[in-house]
């Protein structure tokens, strides 16, 4: 009996734990596994972790080679997101390997990877799976002799002050990042064929990736603004990934450090790292840019019921409500570029929906004079937002025989001749029969 009671209390105490986890209705991550090379990272990067815990994330710190770590148990994922702050790990402990991390992301979970100048092959492999290639030279670092951060102790210009951000409020927040972001680490390049990966912070055109200690004889493999310092990936299943070649940019030292870009007289009291990385973590952990569409409706203009079929040339109205997740609640999403397609093999109509600024989008258009099976399609893909893909099938029929136009004025002569003929016939029968 006592045992049963214990189980019951255990079960009930676990329910709230599961209910706050990631779900389509509540898409923010909650449980985060942080893998580190050394627990000292927990203290040296505490400001970053502190900003996560203060937003309600449950961080679980584990050594990357801890033999007891695992991402799932009994087929259930234990975490909503994974943070890899273990650039030098050669082999993960427990059941984690590259394939399981890829599976983790494939099932819609989020990932943050930070490498460093001594990044192991394993971390590079994880990055490659995400569509990002770190410089293959293990001794290479990103060097910029023009846009470096002025520092009394860093003479080799590997401490870079970069402010070449992606122009997307959804990823970096609406507040402008004033101070440059400090970066020290390795650069990576993006596969141009991969349309899912985005450069969030790119190096300036004077940067290059090379070993600062040796002379260059061949041009470095990565130069200029092709070097990405921080990249994000949004997979087709809306899983989000952040990849950077600098672990130190998350550190308290960089968060607190002042920054002055070479050649600029403005000295910022605080680097942009904290704002930049906090904002981007909001995006990665789905506190921003996560859309949902509800109440997809369509009907003829002037009616309110949804018909099973439309006739060609009908006037119809299509409407949808779109909401954005703010981390705690669904807020109306306001934009002026949501488009609906009336689609059969190719779009027959593509129209921008008008909005009432409260998340309700609608458009009116005439059904084309082609019959067949059509679809209402909303393919909404915007930089940084989760993609919306709605489609609803609807048949369109031609006119019935009695729905065509009648009594055309152009046909009046024909009508007139027929009827005058009939009248003439009637008179003729009488005259012919009875006239003498």
């Amino acid at each position, binding site marked *: 009996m006592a045992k049963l009671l214990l189980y019951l209390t255990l079960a009930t105490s676990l329910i709230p734990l599961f209910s706050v986890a990631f779900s389509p209705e509540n898409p923010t991550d909650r449980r985060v596994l942080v893998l580190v090379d*050394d627990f*000292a*990272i*927990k*203290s*040296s990067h*505490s*400001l970053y972790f502190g900003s996560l815990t203060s937003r309600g994330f449950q961080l679980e710190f584990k050594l990357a080679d801890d033999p007891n770590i695992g991402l799932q148990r009994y087929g259930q994922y234990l975490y909503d997101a994974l943070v890899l702050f273990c650039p*030098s790990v050669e082999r993960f402990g427990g059941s984690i390997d590259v394939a399981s991390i890829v599976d983790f992301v494939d099932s819609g979970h989020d990932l943050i990877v930070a490498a460093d100048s*001594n990044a192991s092959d394993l971390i590079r492999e994880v990055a490659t799976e995400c569509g990002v290639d770190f410089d293959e030279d293990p001794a290479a670092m990103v*060097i910029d002799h*023009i846009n470096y951060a002025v520092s*009394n*102790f860093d*003479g080799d*210009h590997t401490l870079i002050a970069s402010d070449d951000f*992606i122009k997307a409020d959804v990823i970096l927040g609406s507040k402008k990042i004033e101070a440059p972001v400090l970066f*020290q680490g390795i650069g990576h390049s993006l596969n*141009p*064929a991969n349309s899912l990966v985005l450069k969030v912070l790119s190096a300036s*055109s*004077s940067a*290059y990736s*090379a070993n*600062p200690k040796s*002379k*260059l004889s061949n*041009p*470095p493999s990565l*130069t*200029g603004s092709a070097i990405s310092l921080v990249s994000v990936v949004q997979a087709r299943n809306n899983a989000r990934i952040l990849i950077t070649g600098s672990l130190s940019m998350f*550190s308290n*030292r960089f968060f*607190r450090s002042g920054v002055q870009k070479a050649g600029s007289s403005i000295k910022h009291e605080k680097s942009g790292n904290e704002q930049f990385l906090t904002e981007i973590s909001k995006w990665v952990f789905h506190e921003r840019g996560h859309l949902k569409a509800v109440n997809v409706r369509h009907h003829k203009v002037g009616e309110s019921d949804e018909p099973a079929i439309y006739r060609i040339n009908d006037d119809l109205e299509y409407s949808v409500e779109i909401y954005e997740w703010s981390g705690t609640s669904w807020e109306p999403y306001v934009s002026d570029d949501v*488009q609906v397609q009336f689609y059969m093999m190719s*779009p*027959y*109509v*593509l*129209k921008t929906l008008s909005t009432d600024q409260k998340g309700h989008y609608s458009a009116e258009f005439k059904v*084309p*004079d082609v019959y067949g099976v059509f679809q209402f399609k909303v393919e909404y893909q915007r930089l940084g937002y989760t993609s919306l893909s709605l489609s609803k099938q609807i048949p369109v029929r031609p006119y019935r025989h009695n729905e065509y136009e009648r009594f*055309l*004025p152009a046909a*009046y*002569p024909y*009508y*007139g001749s027929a*009827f*005058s003929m*009939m*009248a003439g*016939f*009637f008179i003729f*029968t*009488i*005259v012919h*029969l*009875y*006239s003498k």
Partner: protein
Amino acid sequence: MARSPLRFLVLILAISICHAAGIFHPISDSHRSAALDLFKPVDGSFASLEEAYEALRTFEVLGIEKTAELSKAICKSVLGTLESSSSTPKDLFHALGVNGILKCSSKEETFEGIISSLQAVVRDANSLLDFYYSIGSLRLIKDQTSKTDLHLSDAEGTFRSIKALSQSDGRWRYSSNNPESSTFAAGIALEALSGVVSLASSEIDQFMIGAVKNDIVKLFDSIEKYDDGTFYFDEKLVNMREQQGPLATTSSVVRGLTAFSSVITESLNLPGDKILGIAKFFLGIGIPGDTKNFFDQVDLLACLENNRVSIPLILSLPSTVISLTKKDSLKVKVNTVLGSHAPPLTVTLVRAFSSSARDNSIIENQELKFDPQDAVYFLDDLPASFDVGEYIFVFKMLVQDSEQQTVYATGTLTQVPIYVTGLIKIENAKIAVLDSDLGSVETQKKLDLAGESTVSVSANHLQKLRLSFQMSTPLGNAFKPHQAFLRLRHETKVEHTFVVGSSGKKFEITLDFLGLVEKFFYLSGRYDIQLTVGDAVMENSLLREIGYVELDLPEPPENASRPPPQPVDPYTRYGPKAEITHIFRAPEKRPPEELSLAFLVLTILPLFGFIIGLLRLGVNLKNFPTSAVPATFAVIFHLGIAAVLLLYVLFWLKLDLFTTLKTLCFLGVFLMVVGHRTLSHLASASAKLKSA
């Protein structure tokens, strides 16, 4: 075992990657602001007295004022703990620690009850932590009150029972029935032992103290080391290491060590460089973000700041980047770990050499002058032959007062990498197009690399492009920058980067387009030329768009490689698409209504003509049957015809085919009957007429 140092090295690298090897900085203001951020009281107080002690001790060491409200709130819980009879020695220990800082209560009667119970704990204790907390508490009481009669009854015995837990390698066990020994415990034991010595009513046996000193020396044999000269203690057992990291372990040992050395009369002969290495280790981790680690760091440095073993002195440079143009001078600071001033020292620059040519010393054995105002040592002026570049300076410091030389740990030599920067002259920049076979110059243009002007040249695949310039240091020596790239960018964003080679001062690159055709993917057109010259010691690193070259390359052969795909601009990729509206089939053309009406009138006109014609012909109805029955049939017959015609009209207006045909069926049969009667009557009437 090998795993842990490696792992920790990563951390050190990650944190102090900016600090070149060998440079450590004493505690500064950034620590103070970080401490205020870190030790934030929740609801006006701290969660436990242990945390309160850590916070207050940190504030005390760093010289941060604490607020009166906070003190009051903490004092309340201190007094509560001290007066409660159920407080454990651990609670008392922390409460007394806080009391020592805040001076909440110094009333002797508060302590009376505690003392007796603590002494009882000491008598019965058999685990190290019991000894540690009870003896530590007693010692704190002794410091805080004026009681002079506070003694341990059997100091010698207590000392022995603590010493009995020690292991042969200098580490300690937590209790006699726990076989695992720990370095962290060694620190605790040393602190407890020092407490016993200071609480003892009589001298402790010198032999015993000698044995403990021996243990300390053995403990120092197990110290771990990094390549940059830092030292630390770590637990040997993995499961223990998870409880106590290197920071906590080292901090505990040093705390015990300094406490023990302060109570014994003779000095502990420990190597000063290891103490200095420990100090450097703790300075090298920067600012920890964890309260526990922060406290460990600050408390350890405070212990080292004023100890009897040896006080480490830290040599640091305000800047390791020296600009020749700004005429910066070389400055060196020497401080204790907490940043206070060091005793008078002689700081010597032993050697300075270029990091590429290590055997060539530029400066040797030069003593630095002391500037008492800023408390910095500086080098008067750099020798005239000092050129830009990366150097390694080797410093040595020596305490001037020879009696104090053993008190301070100064280390042997400190190596510091120094970057000497300056303006590099770039001259004679020229761009030329050469004919390939003859090598004769076809066009040559001068470049102004400082200005904004651009040049344009054109070339075909049989020609060469040559870019040349000269670079020299402020002293006129040859200078080879790390980055000297020439970049050609085609209109389609395909880029090609070349390294500009040098011989002496002259930099030259010749692009033979014949050999590069394949590499350029046979793409003709305009190529923008960009020159990047940069180096860590070059103050005027430049990135210049020089101009463009109009290239005329042959048509690509069939199997030529295609240019690599260029990344798509993310902004355009996601923009809204152009709207599509369906184009409806145009309605057929119709004549205007007036025309139709006009023709309607025209079609009706013949009917009128017909009627008028009939009237003109003088039609009559004389043949109409006169008798009643045939006349009725005739009327019905014509009404029937009219009904059929009306049915046609109705069919046109609204009836469908089925109704019409059905009705027509009936009407037709009816018409046939009636028509037959009418027509037969008419026929018989006309036959009668003929026969008559």
